[in-house]
């Protein structure tokens, strides 16, 4: 499926790229499946090498960002295969645009912004996207408070052992499923902020939304996932 997509897109590009007459990349030194690069690879260095046509720099960028890009794209498009295609198109846009990258945002934010825009327009074509819903949504079910707004059914205590257990195995799988069921805007913001670790400003840059909207979406997304965990823990 994905391989087919790659060939198809690759074929489209060949004609256009033929005239670019770039210098051959330096000997490829990349290794497959290495751990994502940490912050020690600075944007400046990576951008410089990408501009020089260094294939190992491209491999590094792919190793660092591709999986997160596919995950974010899945927020907006109906399938994993389409998300892979969007990510692949984004890489082409990155290669074409890297000479114009001005470094006003981080490389990651810049790449994610290109990706989010493409994924959203693809999603709109697939008629999946819905407008950001900012209508009222209670953080906690209102039935858990008394008439004065005090807890009548307060949250049960999560012991330290319970909290330690949260990040292991089955509950993480539940959380993954819960994220994929969040409304689009909440899912995108939770993914960028809590899964990818972007700042609120970066998340706003990527999605083109205000800080206030971003905060509402983050709040609701986190609230839903907390409620899901509460429900799962109550079953155990």
């Amino acid at each position, binding site marked *: 499926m*994905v*391989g087919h997509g*790659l060939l198809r*897109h*690759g074929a489209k*590009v*060949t004609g256009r*790229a*033929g*005239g*670019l007459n*770039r210098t*051959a*990349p330096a000997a*490829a030194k*990349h290794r*497959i*499946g290495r751990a994502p690069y940490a912050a020690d690879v600075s944007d400046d260095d990576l951008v410089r090498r990408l501009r020089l046509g260094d*294939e190992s720099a491209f*491999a590094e960028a*792919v*190793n660092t960002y*591709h*999986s*997160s890009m*596919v*995950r974010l794209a899945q927020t907006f498009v109906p399938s994993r295969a389409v998300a892979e295609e969007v990510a*692949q198109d984004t*890489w*082409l846009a990155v*290669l074409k645009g890297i000479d114009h990258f001005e470094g006003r945002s981080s490389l990651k934010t810049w790449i994610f912004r290109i990706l989010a825009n493409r994924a959203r327009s693809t999603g709109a074509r697939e008629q999946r996207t819905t407008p950001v819903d900012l209508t009222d949504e209670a*953080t*906690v079910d*209102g039935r858990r*408070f008394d008439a*004065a*707004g*005090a*807890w009548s059914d*307060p*949250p*049960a*205590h999560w012991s330290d052992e319970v*909290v330690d257990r949260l*990040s292991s195995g089955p*509950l*993480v799988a539940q*959380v993954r499923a819960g994220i994929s069921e969040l409304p689009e805007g909440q899912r995108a913001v*939770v993914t960028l902020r*809590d*899964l990818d670790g972007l700042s*609120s400003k970066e998340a706003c840059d990527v999605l083109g939304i205000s800080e206030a909207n971003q*905060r509402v979406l983050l*709040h609701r997304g*986190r*609230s839903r*996932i*907390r409620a899901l*965990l*509460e429900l799962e823990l109550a079953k155990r």
Partner: protein
Amino acid sequence: MRLPTLRRDIECQQAVELVTGYLEGTLSRREARRFEAHLRACDGCEEYLRQVKATIAVLGSVQPDDLAPETLQGLLELYRQFRGE
């Protein structure tokens, strides 16, 4: 659980709405003080904040799928085509 003198300012139902603003540092100083005062007097809301923090930690442990070697190879082929090789 209920300490009316301290909790008069905000009720639990309002407090839970302030959690993200509090964690993001976007509440006004006055709002943040009221929120903290409420939490000191309210076990339910203190627990709620703790659970939200634990939720954020779990979310942070959700990793994207590993990059498949064939995906990397496919993208490198795309790269070489782009560079006109």
